[in-house]
Every structure is written in C-alpha cells, then in structure tokens.
C-alpha cells in the first residue's frame, strides 16, 4: 500500500490544539516512555507520524489514541518538548469530529465559541421547554415532580436518549468501518481466534479496563500513585467516572423501583436506601473528581493538563454543573423546609444533564464510547496466522 502524503493535515491538527506536533523529530522517546503502549499498539509516535505525513485514514482507523489516558509522562520526557500527550488529545478531538458525520462535533472542537454557545442555548432550550410545563412549587416539602411533571421529564429524557443513541451508533459505525479497513479487521477477527474471544474481549473492554481502570491504575503513572492515592491521576479519573456511573445507576434504580412499585420517583427516602446511598456516594465522588480536574487544568499543574482546549472546558463545565446542581438538589430535598431555589436548581440540573447527555457523541464525552470500542478491538486476540505450506524442500 502506498501512502500519499497530505501536507494539510498537520496544520489541521494544530487547529485541534496539537501545539508541538511540528517539533517532533521522531526519536521515539514518547513511545518508549509510555507504559500503556505495546508492540501491537504503538503510540504516541505512530499517531504523531501519521499526522505529520497526513495519513488521515490511518489516524482515523487507529485504536491507539483511545488507549491513552493522558498521563502526560511522554510530554514530560520529550527531548523536543513536542507535547506528545497533547497531540494524542488533539488526535482524539480530531477523531470525534470526523466520526460524527452530523458536523456538530466539529463545532465543539474547531469553533469552540459556537460550541459553547450551542451548549448554553441547548440548556436554556431544555430549561425553557420544561419551564413551560411547570406546575406547582410546594413549600412544604420539595415536591420536584409536582413542579415539572415526572412523565414529561421521562419522555423528554427518552427522546434525548434515542437521539443520542442514534448519533452514537452512527459515529461508532463510522469508527468501526475505518478501524476495520485500516487494521484488516474482519468478522473472522471477532469470531475467530481463541474460543470466547469476543466475550473475553468484551469483558476486558467494558469491565476490566474502563470500570476497573486496570491499566491506568497499574501501569500508568506509577510514581504518581506512590504519592497520595486520592490525588493520583487514575483515581481522579476513576472518581469522576465511577461517580457519574453511580449517579446514572441511582437514577436508573430509582426509576426501576417505581416500575416495580416499591416507591415513587423523587420521594424522600432514608440515607441507607440503596439508590440514595449510591447517588450520594456517586455525587460526592463525581464532584470531587470533576473539581480536581478543573483545578488541575486551571492551574496547568503538569504537562498533561497544560494545554486545555475549549472542548475540554465545555465538557468539564457541563459535567461539573450537572454534578454540583444534582448534589444541591439532593441537599435541598432533605432540608427541613423546602427552599424555592431547590426548584430552580432542579430545573437547572435537568437542563444541564440533558445537554450533557445530548451532546455526548459530539463533545469530549464521546471518548467514553470510542474508548470502549477501541479497547474491545484491542482486547481481541489475533487470529493465529497459518503459514502457507512451502512447496518443496530446499
């Protein structure tokens, strides 16, 4: 296969925030420094090289960029200070933009002002829309679903979910097609190989790595971990993710309990009540994680957090607002007297959360999807290559 150079890509990459990409002289320090890279998945240099030469298909078909957790060690040691970690982040941004065929992702990555505006407008739209459906604000106790009818939120939520799911599937499809093309992945890659290959890969891609943060925890920034665990990079990332998932789980459980008729959604329950317990813990973790991330980026504490692009801020802001408002609502819910601001906070929370979810395939949030897909392909054991029998003997 001949690869034709495309000089425009590197300039493009700079627009995605790859500040140092042109400085790289391909010494390989970054790749050899990275503890996550391996001979089947080499990065960051491979990604940098593809971007330097403009090999778009190879970049968009690569799973490598999603295996990176942005620990920043490569940038710390780079002899040219080409910021490889930052280039990896830019590559992810570039991929998010390109997998999304709707063009919305492009706005968030390339035209951050518009992206930000979209997020704000969307939140206002959701808020205003729900506000039109408002009913009563009880001051006796915080009866949130008397304020905005539960059915309405539910329906709106489902509509948003379906739209998001459609857009996500489309983007994932794009990704898979490109990845399959670039890496010669066929159905046989999934079904062939070791028995239960697809299942073990799935287990690894969904549970062990993202949920367990295995490699991030064990292989990435080991020195960092030795310091204080609650400030280590993997834990902050894990706290954010676990917290978020905890909140989602709590919401889902709450809903589930209503369906099975145990309790009404939104009804005040004791602290030990599982959905509430999960929700409170999740909220705490989530708020902690996102806050630390924001502070790190704001203070540019290390190489990995030095080059924040607007899409990072939009994503973190959405996360933070949805988390913190949810938490405040939670507090309001258990105050002896229901404060009026609790209703407004609830409205705010629902709008921001919906915006966050709605924008999932288009913002940095999309990494949660692509990373799982990439991890899945990465975890597939290769189909053993059977050497064709040599004709005759020498």
């Amino acid at each position, binding site marked *: 296969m001949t690869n034709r150079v495309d000089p425009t890509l590197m300039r493009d990459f700079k627009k995605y925030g790859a500040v140092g990409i042109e400085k790289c002289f391909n010494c390989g320090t970054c790749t050899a420094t990275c503890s996550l*890279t391996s001979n089947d998945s080499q990065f960051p240099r491979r990604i940098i090289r593809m971007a330097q030469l403009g090999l778009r298909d190879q970049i968009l078909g690569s799973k490598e960029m999603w295996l990176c957790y942005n620990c920043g060690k490569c940038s710390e040691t780079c002899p040219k200070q080409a910021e490889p970690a930052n280039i990896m982040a830019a590559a992810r941004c570039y991929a998010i933009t390109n997998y999304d065929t709707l063009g919305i992702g492009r706005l968030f990555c390339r035209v951050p002002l518009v992206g930000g505006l979209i997020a704000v407008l969307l939140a206002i739209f959701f808020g205003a829309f729900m506000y039109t459906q408002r009913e009563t604000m009880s001051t006796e106790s915080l009866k949130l679903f008397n304020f905005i009818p539960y059915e309405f939120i539910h329906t709106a939520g489902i509509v948003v979910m379906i739209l998001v799911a459609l857009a996500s599937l489309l983007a994932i499809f794009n990704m898979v097609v490109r990845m399959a093309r670039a890496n010669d992945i066929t159905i046989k890659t999934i079904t062939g190989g070791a028995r239960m290959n697809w299942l073990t890969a799935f287990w690894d891609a969904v549970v062990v790595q993202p949920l367990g943060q295995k490699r991030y925890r064990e292989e990435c920034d080991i020195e960092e971990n030795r310091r204080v665990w609650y400030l280590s990079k993997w834990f902050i990332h894990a706290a954010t993710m676990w917290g978020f998932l905890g909140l989602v789980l709590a919401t889902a459980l709450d809903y589930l309990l209503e369906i099975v008729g145990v309790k009404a959604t939104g009804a005040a329950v004791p602290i030990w009540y599982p959905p509430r317990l999960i929700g409170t813990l999740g909220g705490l973790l989530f708020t902690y994680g996102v806050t630390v991330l924001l502070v790190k980026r704001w203070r540019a504490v290390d190489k990995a957090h030095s080059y924040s692009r607007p899409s990072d801020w939009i994503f973190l802001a959405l996360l933070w607002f949805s988390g913190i408002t949810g938490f405040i609502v939670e507090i309001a819910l258990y105050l002896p007297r229901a404060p009026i601001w609790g209703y407004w906070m609830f409205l705010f929370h629902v709008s921001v959360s919906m915006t966050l979810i709605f924008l999932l395939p288009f913002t940095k949030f999309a990494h949660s999807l692509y990373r799982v897909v990439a991890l899945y392909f990465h975890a597939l054991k290769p189909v053993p290559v059977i050497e064709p029998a040599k004709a005759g003997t020498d």
Partner: protein
Amino acid sequence: MDDLHMDALVIGGGIAGMQSALDLGDQGFQVALVERDPSIGGRMITLSKVFPTLDCCSCITTPKMSAVAHHPNIHLYTYCEIQSVQEHGAGFDVSILQKPRYVDISKCTGCRECEYECPITVPSPFDRNLGAYRAIRVPFSTAVPQKAVLDPEYCLWCGKCEQKCPVEAIDFSQQPETFTIEADSIIMATGFDLTPVSTKKEYGAGKLHNVIDPLMMERFLAPTGPYGRVLRPGDGKEPGSIAYVQCAGSRDETLGITYCSRVCCMYAIKQAMLLNGALPMADITIYYMDIRTFGKGYEQFYQNAKAMGVNFVRGKVASIREDADQNPILKVEMTDTGEIVEQTFDLVVLSQGIVPASHPTVSLPLGSDGFISVPAPDSAPCVTGRPGIFVTGTAAGPMDIVDSIVSASAAAAEASAYIRENGSRLEVEKEALYA
C-alpha cells in the same frame, strides 16, 4: 616572582592550547602556557585511541607535551589559576595564582619514591576516580612536568615522603603565590566538561551501578588504565553486552542542552570498535537518533564498524533502570520498525556531550549555549568579543581533536597577527624576530 612579559598567554594545556603555544613558539614568539592541573595534556591524554585512525592517543599527545616542555620559547606554568585579566594598552596584565605543590619542582626528579612511601590512597581523577593513587604522586605516568604533587586535602602530614625524598624536594611550607604576566594577547583554550546527567532521572541520574560515562570507558580501554581491561564498575564482572546511549547529554530540551555535541557519535563508534577487539565475544549496540560521522574518513569508519558487527539501532533511549543483579535495562522504541524493546545489558555507556569547562576569571561574552561567543564565525572563527583575546578548541563549542588542532593553529595565526599589529614589543625586537 618577577613580573614577566610575554607575547602571548595561552590558558589551558590541553591539545588545543599546546598546539597554539607550539605554533606561536615556532614563529619565535614568547608564550606562557598556563594550566590549572599539575600536568599538561588535558582531556586528550586520558583517552585510549583516537578516531578515525585509531592511533594510540598518547602517541600523538605525549610528543606534543614533550615538544611544549622542551620548546625554548614556551614557558610552562602548571598548577596555576588565572585570577584576573586587566587590559593594559593593547595587551593585558594577567594575575596568576600558583597553587602550592608542596614539592620544589626545581629539585624533584620524578623518581616517585615519595609516592611509593605515601600511606594514603585517594581516588584518581585522571582515571575518572576508577583507580587510585597516593596523596603525593606524579599525576600520571606520562605527565609533563614529571614532578610530584601533594594533595593537601588527603595528606596526613605524616612526613614519610619528606624523609624518603632523595633530593629533599618536599616542602610543606609552600604557600599559594600570586604573580603577574604581561601579555600582548591571550588564547583561551579552556576546554570542556561532560554534560551532567544528574538531572536526567530517566537515565538513573548517575546512580545506577553499571552505567558509566564515556571518559570512564576511555580509561577502561586505555592501556594505562586502572584495570588494564574492561569491566563493570559495579561488580568487576567482564561485560558481555554493552550499550551506548547517544545524545545522553545533547539535543535534549529536558536537559536544557539543545545543541549537538559533535564528537559523541564518533567516540561511541570508536569505543565500540576497540571493545570489539578487547572483548571479541561482547555484543555492542549503539542507540542513536542520527549518526553524525561528518569528518574526513568518518563515514567510512562508521561503515567499518557496521561491517564489524556493531549493532546500530535508531531510537532514543527513553529510560534506564536496573534489575536485581544491577544489570541496566534500557527501554527504547526502535523507530525503524516501531518495536518497543526492553533490553538488558551488562554495561551501559551514556554518550554524554560537551559543556564549557568552568572558566578562569576572564570575563568574556558568552553565547546562548554557554561557550565563549565568537561574534563573526564566518569571517574570524577564533576572535572573541574582547580584542586581543582569542579562543580555540572546545572553549568555542563542541569540537573533535582534528578540528581543535586546526582551530588551535588558526588561533595562533590570529594571535601572532595581533601581536605584530598591536603588540608592545619594540619595533627593533620585531625586526630581530625575523632577522
């Protein structure tokens, strides 16, 4: 001491300084050669063999040292430090500190009786602290002058040497003395130091047992070296596999040194070739980014090394750690294939680069790289920012021996022209010079 008048004062008795002094002396100028150490010879005399001819290094250096010592027009001041340099007309008043040797060099015959008698063993900087010598000693076997020197830091003042000395040369009462030389011109030949790697924690920050600097390897390979063979400093084992980490102190912004040190590729290849001879069974691998064998005969030298079986791998070594047996382990991406390897070696040499040596007190404008600034390299490559002061060798940036020697002769030409055009010598004397 009386004030002295010289046509030129050369600071630094390494190969560049010696060559400048010889070229000026050969033209009939009176030259003072001031050296900080007790012997001239500089870095070069500590090397094993030199590229690309693989001549034994002392075969080239010692005759020059000898020629300097015997030259009627060259006045040697060893173990001296420059204190200050003041303009004086077109020339300079140079104040020099003679450090006490505690040995009267007019009496010492270099018989080494004191050295044999001395009970104190101290690490020898000549051998990069790999070997040891005595608190009183002739600095090394081919030292010029062949005179003993006592190291007061370690001396117990037991007086054994004094009793043993057959010519009563030991003089514990010596004090530092300052004297002044009036010189019409100055040549800076102050040389280099290795780039420090203590800040490079990825390479062990100088704490790994079997990771050494290239000058240590030179001492291992030198026939006059401390052990007479190549071994691991960690445990004395003979290494079966040796790796060279190129650009371990150059072209690296994390060290703050962005320039190329120019000599490391060639010395690594040279050492690899010599190791091939010394340890024929050893595997030698050189990890590099660009092989810079640019000089006359250098490219062929590189090709010969390849043909000889030295393994060249492109990729900058990312990190070095050691295993339980103190074997260094390198991690590197072999960029030709993208393969990431962790390779265990018995011995690793960090190809450290060149930084300016700590300067004597001659205030001169420096370049952004820390070396003495040469404002017009493409019209006057040896002229510094201060009239009458010239620079040569590695004081003006990384340079190999061949280039240093040529540059030394060039500096001599500049200095001699300056002396003729501006010097304070009487016209009569100038005429007499070439009569």
